């Protein structure tokens, strides 16, 4: 009895140091766990909130610019050298199969660009051809998760689905003809002007979507190819083409 009381009143010094160390260690481990949990919330939720806000503000700005008469020739294709400020975005991609509305498209595929919740067209390693060019491949990349996750549902896109690109005065309607569900991240041939592995061998007007796969990782790349089937002039009320009116 007296021994027990003495021990509880005055525990041996080395044991109390060990207990204190273990309790701090335990608290640190719990803290690390909470921080990692917060990081997941940041990656999968907060970056989407920020990117969607930024992209929709930017998209509204583009649409406002489109409503104003352009300085040189209203019906000009936006291909004239120096005529268009492409940095703000060149148009909107609509993919009905992904059910995510419109995706603003900007030049470049650096993280700075893609993190704004947009799709970027490749400027390197293989430069994309823009939709109004006579031949080539309009190659795009966007995030699968986080930062807007604009290509999250890319696996829902199947052969025959429509991909519609909207510019100031033209709707470019593409049809998907091939998917590559998994490829190496070094497989740059998929964004060639005539994309390798898509099955096509002749030059044409192609569109390529790339993003990472499987979801939540960046181990491989997912690729979807389409080709232009027709273009439609944008009318005064911006009536969308039949593919978007479902």
């Amino acid at each position, binding site marked *: 009895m007296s021994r027990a009381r003495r021990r509880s009143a005055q525990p041996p010094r080395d044991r109390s140091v060990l207990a204190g160390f273990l309790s701090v260690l335990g608290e640190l481990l719990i803290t690390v766990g909470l921080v990692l949990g917060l990081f997941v919330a940041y990656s999968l939720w907060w970056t989407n909130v920020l990117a969607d806000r930024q992209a929709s503000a930017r998209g509204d700005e583009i649409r406002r610019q489109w409503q104003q008469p352009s300085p040189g020739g209203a019906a000009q294709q936006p291909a004239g050298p120096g005529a268009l400020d492409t940095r703000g975005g060149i148009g909107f991609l609509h993919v009905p199969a992904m059910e995510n509305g419109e995706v603003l498209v900007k030049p470049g595929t*650096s993280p700075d660009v893609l993190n704004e919740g947009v799709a970027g067209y490749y400027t390197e390693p293989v430069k994309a051809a823009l939709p109004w060019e006579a031949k080539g491949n309009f190659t795009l990349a966007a995030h699968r998760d986080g930062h807007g996750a604009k290509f999250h549902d890319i696996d829902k896109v199947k052969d025959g689905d429509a991909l519609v690109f909207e510019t100031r005065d033209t709707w470019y309607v593409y049809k998907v003809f091939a998917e590559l569900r998994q490829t190496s991240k070094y497989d740059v041939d998929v964004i060639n002007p005539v994309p390798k592995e898509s099955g096509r061998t002749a030059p044409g007007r192609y569109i390529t979507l790339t993003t990472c796969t499987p979801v939540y990782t960046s181990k491989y790349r997912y690729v979807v190819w389409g080709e232009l089937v027709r273009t439609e002039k944008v009318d005064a009320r911006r009536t969308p083409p039949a593919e978007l009116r479902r």
Partner: protein
Amino acid sequence: MYGWIWRHLPGNAWVRALISLAMVLAVVFVLFQYVFPWAEPLLPFNDVTVDEGSGAAP
């Protein structure tokens, strides 16, 4: 560690709880605003492009 902080906060239990909450929110803010944006590009979760593997492009 947390016990030590709690013991060194002023005021009664309610005041301490309020200060603790403010401190937690401040930490979460710093993490979301500065630490996570810095850490994210260093982690291999969000590279979406194909590239030559030089490490220059994402």
